[in-house]
């Protein structure tokens, strides 16, 4: 039916195949009766393939379908069958959430919007031929969206690259079984034990995330293992997000528990003894959590979308088209930008990108001055949260997104904002996945 879609062995789950044939059949018939339309099987505005079904990819797929009123065929390629939210996953460590509260299926998204779904991994991108190769087939595209999230760079910590090492010393920086593993290790830790964790050099996914993690682990230890301590080894010169608020929360809520060391990049890890070294010191942990340095997702590296001097993807902020490869757009955490790598940011980039692609495929000009709102909530305890929020506007001279006036952080954490953060999560999940 569709020579455009040359893909063996994979099922188009979620999308009702019969409906699709019926639908394209109906349009095809109309198109054929209309002079000049030879390609009856091709959807009217073309096909967009989306690599990755995280916050960015799933949102782009949905809004492409919505804003093109179904005139763009959208195929998502995602190796996982479930979506697990990184936002709120620190609460699993604190014990106020379970990983099963943060895990969702893709069925609603697929069926509500007629998104085709391929459960597979992308191996290469051929930008010349506008084609991608999967483990089990090939897909051609008119526009490609690359949304793979982050990849860990183990070059400086090769001893942590293996699955066995990560079983001992989880990063838990992609929510899933590692999050559960780290929680179990904390539960098994004796009272009086030492939890050691690090903050990688920025940029990394979720700037306030490691500091929120400190709060969550501290909250658990304070009530359950009050003799225990936390050592935080920060590769950065200071707390890089919500500094004043986190410092205050640590001092007021968890006095005597947290030993924070700025400028302490990890230089070595001895896996068996859970001992980490920095330039200055050595720390032996009972539970050790190392968050490795990060770079753009693997497929972005393979497809030459990353820069020579730094491992992130430069894009045009009007369309999110790669500056290196034509017709390939990059959104989400892989994007090189002075913007926080947050879930809300990923969905914003996805929407600007989808908006622009609809315009481009329709032969129209994308919005020359996009604007969006971004917020990151962090929990300092099981109930209290605080925000950093900014509006970002496109700056024509600098050609980047810059924060507008009026942005900033909460005066102090509150239970009220804790409730609003839950409401945020429920709305962003529904916006992304239904």
């Amino acid at each position, binding site marked *: 039916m569709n020579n455009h879609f040359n893909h063996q062995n994979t099922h188009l789950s979620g999308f009702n195949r019969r409906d699709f044939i019926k*639908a394209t059949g*109906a*349009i095809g018939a*109309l*198109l054929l009766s*209309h002079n*000049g339309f030879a390609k009856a099987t091709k959807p*009217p*505005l073309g096909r967009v393939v989306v690599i990755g079904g995280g916050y960015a990819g799933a949102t782009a797929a949905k809004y492409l*379908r919505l*804003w*093109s*009123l*179904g*005139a763009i065929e959208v195929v998502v390629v995602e190796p996982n*069958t*479930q979506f*697990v939210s990184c936002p709120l996953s620190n609460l699993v460590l604190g014990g106020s959430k379970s990983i*099963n*509260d943060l*895990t969702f299926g893709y069925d*609603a998204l697929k069926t509500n*919007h007629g998104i085709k779904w391929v459960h597979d991994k992308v191996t290469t991108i051929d930008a010349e031929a506008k084609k991608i190769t999967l483990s089990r087939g090939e897909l051609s595209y008119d526009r490609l969206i690359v949304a793979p999230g982050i990849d860990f760079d183990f070059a400086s910590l090769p001893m942590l690259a293996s699955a066995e090492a990560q079983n001992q010393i989880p990063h838990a920086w992609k929510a*899933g*079984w590692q999050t*559960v593993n780290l929680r179990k290790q904390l539960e098994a830790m004796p009272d009086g034990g030492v939890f050691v964790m690090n903050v990688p050099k920025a940029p990394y996914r979720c700037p306030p995330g490691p500091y929120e993690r400190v709060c969550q682990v501290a909250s658990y230890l304070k009530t359950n293992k009050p003799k225990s301590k936390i050592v935080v080894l920060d590769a950065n010169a200071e707390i890089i997000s919500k500094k004043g608020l986190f410092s205050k929360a640590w001092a007021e809520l968890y006095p005597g528990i947290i030993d924070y060391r700025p400028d302490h990049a990890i230089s070595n890890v001895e896996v068996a003894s859970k001992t980490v070294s920095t330039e200055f010191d050595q720390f032996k942990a009972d539970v050790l959590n190392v968050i490795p340095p990060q770079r753009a997702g693997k497929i972005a590296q393979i497809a030459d979308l990353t820069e020579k001097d730094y491992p992130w993807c430069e894009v045009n902020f009007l369309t999110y088209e790669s500056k290196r490869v034509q017709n390939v757009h990059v959104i989400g955490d892989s994007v090189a930008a002075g913007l926080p790598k947050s*879930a*809300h940011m990923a969905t*914003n980039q996805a929407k600007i990108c989808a*908006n622009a692609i609809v*315009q481009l495929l*329709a*032969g*129209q000009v994308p*919005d020359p001055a*996009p*604007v*969006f*709102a971004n*917020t990151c909530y962090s929990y300092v305890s099981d109930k209290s949260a605080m925000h950093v*929020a900014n*509006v970002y506007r496109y700056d024509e001279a600098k050609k980047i997104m810059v*924060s*507008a*006036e*009026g*942005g*900033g952080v909460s005066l102090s954490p*509150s239970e009220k904002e804790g*409730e*609003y953060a*839950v*409401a*945020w999560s429920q*709305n*962003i*999940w*529904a*916006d992304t996945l*239904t």
Partner: protein
Amino acid sequence: MKQFQVICFLVLSLITSVCLPVQGFATEVSTFSDEQNTHIRSLAASCAACHGTFGNSVVNNQNIASRSTESKGANAVLAGMAVTELTEKLLGFRDGSRKATVMHRHAKGLTIDEINQLAAHFSKQQRIDKSPIKSEILKADHE
């Protein structure tokens, strides 16, 4: 059902554009969008993280009718909100006369023109009852 509506739109747009060349056809389809102002379309969509897709929040939407128009509360449903109400509230957040935990951060970054157009956009959205998405048990084969 939604798929069917989309197809209807497409078929309609095709019928109305039968005389146009290929390029014109494509243009025709995109103008069938519910929001033709693409600047406002994506800006309004960025509010969805807290107020739901097209302003249909999945939380806090019970008994909205019985709440005072003074405040529909945090993460309120914006779909179908009267133009004057939404404009006044955003302007209130903007000049600080309306109490907020976070909305002042967002309202202050917008232009008056954007506020007016956001109000027009949300007033036109259909109010739909939505509930939060249900979570699942994490499967063993996940990362």
